[in-house]
């Protein structure tokens, strides 16, 4: 066991973690943040995307102890029904959600992009979400939603 301290969605935590625990398990099982989805478990699908110190990471490929001292944002920390984030609202308005499994990861990938580049081109949006697989939407409405969110956020 190892003791680590980290900040998740604005809240500080000190947690005991097993050495072989992944960040996704810490978030889902220790903190109950089930908006972090497990898909392929090998870093290909992006369903488990979270933002770690401003960078998107696949939380299935990060060990929990590697998160020591870091600041993590999951979909739960971005917004909720009462206090919805403009990217989430844009996904709803455009109809960018179908089964919803990729949606938390997609929205966080979009957030990380727009934080760094507030005015991305369509090509840059597509590239930013290319690590997040979606089987339902064909991506077009997701791209439109991010494009719309960028206008609202600017």
């Amino acid at each position, binding site marked *: 066991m190892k003791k680590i301290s980290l900040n998740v969605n604005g809240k500080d935590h000190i947690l005991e973690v097993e050495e072989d625990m992944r960040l996704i398990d810490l978030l889902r099982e220790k903190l109950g943040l089930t908006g972090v989805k497990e*898909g*392929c478990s*090998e870093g*290909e*699908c992006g369903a488990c995307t979270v933002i770690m110190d401003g960078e998107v990471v696949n939380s299935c490929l990060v060990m929990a102890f590697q998160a020591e001292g870091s600041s993590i944002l999951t979909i739960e920390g971005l917004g909720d029904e009462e206090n919805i984030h403009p990217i989430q609202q844009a996904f709803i308005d*455009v*109809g960018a*959600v*179908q*089964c*919803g499994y990729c949606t938390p990861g997609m929205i966080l990938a979009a957030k990380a992009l727009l934080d760094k580049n507030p005015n991305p081109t*369509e090509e840059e*949006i*597509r*590239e930013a*979400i*290319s*690590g*997040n*697989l*979606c*089987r*339902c*939407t*064909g*991506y*077009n*409405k*997701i*791209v439109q939603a991010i494009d719309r969110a960028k206008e609202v956020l600017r």
Partner: protein
Amino acid sequence: MKKIGRGIGLSFYGTGYGNGFPDVSKARVRLLEGGKVGIYVGGTEVGQGAKTVLTQIGAETLKMPVEDIVFVHEDTVHMPDAGTAAASRQTYNTGNAIRVACENFRNKLKELAREHLALNSIYGLKVENGKIYLDFFPQKSLSFEELFEKSSKGDIEAEGEFVAQTVMMEEETGQGAPYWPYTFNACGVELEVDTLTGLVEIRKAVFAQDVGRAINPHLVEGQMDGGFAMALGYVLFEDLNLKEGKINNNKFSKYLIPTAMDTLEIEKIIVEDPESTAPYGAKGIGEPTMIPVGPAILNAIYDAIGVRITELPVTPERLVKAIQEHEKEKGEVK
């Protein structure tokens, strides 16, 4: 060398289980507290938008806002069976069951209103915006909320059932009417083939889909985009790599599906030609949106380089090999 080609694909596709197989959807409608209406149906939402479209069909039939419909599904304790979310059948089959159930419910409300309002008959009664009223004397009116309060709370309900009509094909002759209704579509693509690397890049795509009636155009577009992307993967990338019955490409690092970088904005044309047996004319389009894309892409490859591909997926290796064989055959003919 890079070569450009264009191709189209057309398809028609039957809704439902078909071939005379019993295809049944059932729905239940109940008056709830506050004058809301509950629709209970075992039709699964898997992201295709069934929950939205079926709620809209209920709201349309009862002429009330969708916000006042409580749609409950996927809990077999509380609802009748509406069959599988498969065969592109929920909008048509379950939509019809909900329409029938709502019509039965409407008649029940009229009958109860007649009693409570001490009227002679149900003629002239209208059901709209959460109330039942006499069309030519609207002062005679009863709201859903009042009716709920007068009832023994929760006992005002009606059911509806829809059984699709298909005819089994005769084994000997192959004659019959195995499906009804059908949806029709057309897809056109323009692509570029790199004859050196075998890479195919879609430059432009147009997709026209007959939906009978688009109950929710946003969702129809989502299905068209999704169907196109899934077909794109099926035609160009996705390979299980079966060896002696074993799937070798058993993970996403080996089994490649399209990313946002592989898809493109497609021109979508929704064709509305209401189907007389369908709920408000609407037909299901979940599966059909995938079908014409393959032929369109293969025809465009043929148009670009004159090579007919007969095995999917058209991976770069396969395409380069096919081009080389084609060149060799041409050489032999000369």
